[in-house]
């Protein structure tokens, strides 16, 4: 056995490395859950409620049970004793109301799409055939769909046993917290006040790979493969929900095709498949259809936001009051109630707002539960404040960039503690804005806009601004504790040197498209001085990565990679001790660089690979040193990190038809130090598409019976490349001071920043025609109506 020669040139971090995982992910020749099959495996199909609110009087499955290939039909009554209640990990207030949440409905359904019964059969086709033979006798109950009317006295109730449709009200007030003045007083005494109500429409995460689950109950452990973002949380919650011992459960998230928060969940489908497979003692697989995904996987956004802003005549903001209604849907899922609370800290955004009041009431309706969706709370907040800043500028006749500059935190004022109690690590809003302005050709576009207005052109030009920040790196555990969240925010990592000098990295964060394998390899290659291809990154299996808190909230790099860095540093520290012993010098005289340990001032050196082999042989180790070069670390961040950026969007609005065309889009993001610029670029571009989709295209629509009418991809309009312009992207780099890598997180930035940039731009295009707001998505009909009057 020979150790690999040290081939490492260093400088991996910062390179636009092609992603290791892409060949298999793009070709689909990989372990997607639905690609897997086990001996004797059964297929499960789910019967879902067509009604939004009904009592289940009786389920007759006798015919289905007798059909060809059918192994079992299971109803809620059959699992009532085992299924427990689906977990909600975030009781935001002590008196929060939360209904019992069965995986399989027992005597009542509360949204159209809720699981009512399952068929297990030898083939998926037979399972689907048998679904049609199940007869459910439903008794209609009154349907509650609109949040505002749900909150009126005497409204019908989603859950009559709770006595109200309000789940909880959460309040923050800067005067009470001692971080600022009273927003009400600021408003009362203001020279200028702006009042607006915005609607955050309901969105569907629309991840590419449908949810899929395979459960094998035949071993000592029950193994679940699931297309999930959160294998570790899932294992824990399966144990807590079903009462099966944690050490008897193994969860694997194999390659997962996207999530956007939509797979940050412990789903009814997972619990049902788990229980049914265990009941039958056979492997069972369930894969949802797109239609099922749309009517049962959690939705996102859905808030009504009432804002009041106080300012003086020169554009300085003096206070902000925010009152939200947030639609929970029918049940509280994993972090449903906390999503609007994540936004509570971001309404003040990059601005020095001296007085702030926030309140949010969470409301039940007979719709699919909402929960995290890319940005979770922060896009809502950013949208609202960035729209308000544009409205303030219009009211005062000022340039929207000038109003922002008057209020934002200057780069030499960091770290800066905001009115909502967060401490921003670093930032340079001036630099990002200057760069964006230049790339955009801001002044020339403003001149063209004026010219088109003067000419009365049928196509009007609008310019939209969004200077945003967000909090990434969920999260310091003590902060989560203060917010009553049920878990911490640390992450786990491990590094193992193999005898041949190759490296296995284990990470507790769980990629579903982000490119962890590539980025972690770059980081570890530099840290240990080994080759990029000599690093293998393992993830998403509770057996190999026994501990973790998974991937969401732009936390993987800022928290997850930091754990890996700390583990790598422990390996180096131990290797240094061994190197000193091998080279017969004092530990303090050993320098480490580029994978080599050198005795200071000499040319005596040894490589980390040679040490790995020596450790394996263990023939001559220092006294008391264990023969291993493995280490583990758990990183709990001290603080969040706060990426920011300036996005500028130019739209052309056809005033005859209301059609909006994106003409140009400039995104200058500051995500701190960059590990792989190509991955960052991919996150930004995809994020922009998703945020623009909210502004212009996507909306989950329910009719008055509570049926989702945008239930297919023909009705729920996810834009494609053909609908989007070529984005101009650039970066400024202001390192984070929160972590040793200086990284800030980029997973949600594009989505958070782009929605207000686009809507501001559309409103700007037609403001001179008397338009002050257009509801999202800005469809051609809505834009046309806004211009030409009449009810929207």
């Amino acid at each position, binding site marked *: 056995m020979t150790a690999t020669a040290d081939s490492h040139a260093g400088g991996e971090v910062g390179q636009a490395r092609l992603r290791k995982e892409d060949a298999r992910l793009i070709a689909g020749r990989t372990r997607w859950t639905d690609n897997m099959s086990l001996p004797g495996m059964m297929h499960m199909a789910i019967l879902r409620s067509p009604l939004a609110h009904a009592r289940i009087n009786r389920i007759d499955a006798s015919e289905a049970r007798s059909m060809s290939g059918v192994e079992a039909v299971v109803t809620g009554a059959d699992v009532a004793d085992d299924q427990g209640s689906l977990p909600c990990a975030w009781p935001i207030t002590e008196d929060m109301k939360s209904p019992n949440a069965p995986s399989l409905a027992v005597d009542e359904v509360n949204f159209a799409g809720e699981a009512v019964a399952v068929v297990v059969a030898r083939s998926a086709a037979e399972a689907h055939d048998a679904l049609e033979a199940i007869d459910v006798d439903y008794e209609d109950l009154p349907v509650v769909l609109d949040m505002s009317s749900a909150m009126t006295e005497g409204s019908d109730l989603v859950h009559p046993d709770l006595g109200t449709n309000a789940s909880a009200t959460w309040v923050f007030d800067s005067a009470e917290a001692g971080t600022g003045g009273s927003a009400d007083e600021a408003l009362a005494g203001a020279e200028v006040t702006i009042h607006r109500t915005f609607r955050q429409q309901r969105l569907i995460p629309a991840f590419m790979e449908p949810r899929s689950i395979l459960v094998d109950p035949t071993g000592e452990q029950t193994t679940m493969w699931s297309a999930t973002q959160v294998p570790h949380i899932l294992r824990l919650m399966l144990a807590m929900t079903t009462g099966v011992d944690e050490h008897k459960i193994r969860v694997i998230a194999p390659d997962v095709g996207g999530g956007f928060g939509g797979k940050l969940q412990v789903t009814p489908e997972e619990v049902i498949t788990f229980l049914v497979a265990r009941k039958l003692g056979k492997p069972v697989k369930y894969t949802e*259809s797109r239609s099922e995904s749309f009517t049962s996987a959690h939705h996102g956004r859905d808030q009504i936001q009432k804002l009041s802003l106080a300012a003086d005549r020169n554009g300085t903001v003096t206070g902000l009051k925010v009152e939200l209604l947030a639609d929970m849907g029918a049940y509280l899922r994993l972090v449903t109630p906390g999503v609007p609370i994540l936004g509570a800290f971001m309404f003040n955004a990059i601005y020095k707002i001296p007085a702030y009041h926030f309140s949010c009431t969470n409301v039940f309706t007979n719709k699919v539960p909402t929960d995290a969706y890319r940005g979770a709370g922060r896009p809502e907040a950013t949208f609202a404040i960035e729209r308000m800043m544009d409205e303030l500028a219009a009211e005062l006749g000022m340039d929207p960039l000038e109003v922002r500059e008057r209020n934002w935190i200057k780069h030499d004022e960091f770290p800066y503690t905001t009115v909502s109690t967060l401490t921003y690590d670093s930032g340079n809003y001036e630099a990002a804005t200057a760069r964006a302005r230049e790339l955009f050709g801001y002044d020339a576009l403003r001149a063209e806009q004026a010219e088109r207005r003067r000419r009365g052109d049928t196509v009007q030009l609008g310019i939209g601004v969004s200077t945003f920040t967000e909090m990434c790196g969920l999260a310091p555990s003590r902060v989560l504790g203060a917010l009553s969240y049920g878990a911490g925010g640390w992450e786990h990592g491990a590094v193992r040197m193999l005898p041949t000098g190759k490296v296995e990295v284990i990470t507790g964060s769980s990629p579903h498209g982000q490119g962890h394998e590539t980025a972690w390899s770059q980081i570890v290659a530099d840290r240990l001085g080994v080759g990029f291809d000599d690093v293998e990154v393992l993830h998403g299996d509770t057996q190999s990565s026994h501990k973790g808190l998974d991937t969401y909230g732009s936390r993987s790099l800022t928290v997850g990679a930091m754990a890996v860095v700390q583990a790598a540093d422990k390996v180096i520290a131990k290797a240094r001790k061994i190197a000193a012993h091998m080279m017969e010098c004092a530990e303090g005289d050993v320098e480490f660089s580029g994978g080599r340990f050198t005795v200071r001032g000499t040319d005596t050196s040894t490589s980390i690979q040679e040490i790995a082999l020596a450790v394996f042989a263990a023939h001559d180790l220092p006294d008391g040193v264990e023969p291993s070069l493995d280490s583990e670390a758990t990183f709990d961040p001290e603080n969040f990190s706060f990426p920011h950026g300036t996005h500028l969007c130019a739209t052309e609005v056809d005033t005859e*038809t209301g059609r909006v065309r994106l003409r140009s889009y400039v995104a200058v993001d500051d995500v701190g130090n960059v590990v792989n610029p190509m991955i960052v670029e991919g996150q930004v571009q995809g994020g922009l598409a998703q945020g623009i989709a909210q502004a212009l295209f996507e909306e989950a629509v329910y009719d008055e019976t509570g049926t989702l009418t945008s239930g297919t991809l023909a009705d729920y*309009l996810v834009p*494609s490349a053909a609908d989007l312009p070529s984005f101009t992207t650039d970066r400024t780099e202001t390192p984070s001071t929160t972590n040793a890598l200086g990284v800030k997180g980029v997973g949600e930035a594009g989505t958070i920043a782009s929605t207000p940039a686009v809507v501001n731009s559309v409103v700007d295009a037609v403001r001179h025609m008397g338009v002050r707001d257009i509801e999202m998505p800005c469809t051609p*009909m809505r834009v046309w109506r806004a211009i030409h009057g009449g009810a929207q």
Partner: protein
Amino acid sequence: MIPAAFDYEAPNTIDEAVRALAEADDEVKILAGGQSLLPVLRMRLAAPAKLIDLGRIGELQGVRTDGDMLVIGAMTSHYDVQRDPLLNEHAKLLVMATDTVADPQVRHRGTFGGSLAHADPAGDLLAPALALDVEMVIAGPRGRRTVPAAEFFVDYFTTAVGEDELLCEIRVPKYTGWHAHYEKFNRVAQAWSIVGVAAAVRPDGHMIAEARVGLTNMASVPVRARGVEQALVGQEATPEAIRAAAEHALDGTSPTADGNADVAYREHLAKVLTSRAVSAAATS
């Protein structure tokens, strides 16, 4: 999603297909490109006992000339229509409308005949076919018959093709030297029309000598905008004249409302898009 079980037959000739249709006693459906039918089966909105796949019938493929007419086989794919030299020369409007259908994958599978037989009022090929006065050749147990486009489209998803018949050819008069444009209005690139306008004009110097205009999704069937056509004939192609003619766009329409457009907005769009389609055709 998985369709309910069905029998499947793939005849090799039109005659065999007609016989298979006649022999089937249960509900039978013709399968062309499957781009509309398969989603319906997979969502279990229909569960025919048998599918008769026209994919192997060579006679139904391709475009040829027959005297003054072009003949398009019903199973000619959208992709082949887009690239066919005869259609590009003599019936450009059909090509331009086909360019706007769906995405490349769908255009490789979906067929010209399937689109017409499916008769979705939001489908983009119906209005051009109507505007160009094409004729449909239908084969059945009593032989072949020819139905003009004006009588072919009966209602939503309903045509003159009987249960025991199939659409086999579409005969298109040659519009050599005509200028055409299909103006489609939708929200994302791959979507069906909210409103579409098909226009073809025969120019004579600065004048419009003849015009053909058809509207997509303004009624349960495609609508021929004869009022617009008449107003255009003999006019100079000025923006004013075209806009005035487009005021007649609503004659004979009965639009409905959906999430993308209510009736008033749809009517407004029909006029604006008619004006744009005619202008683009006249100035192309």
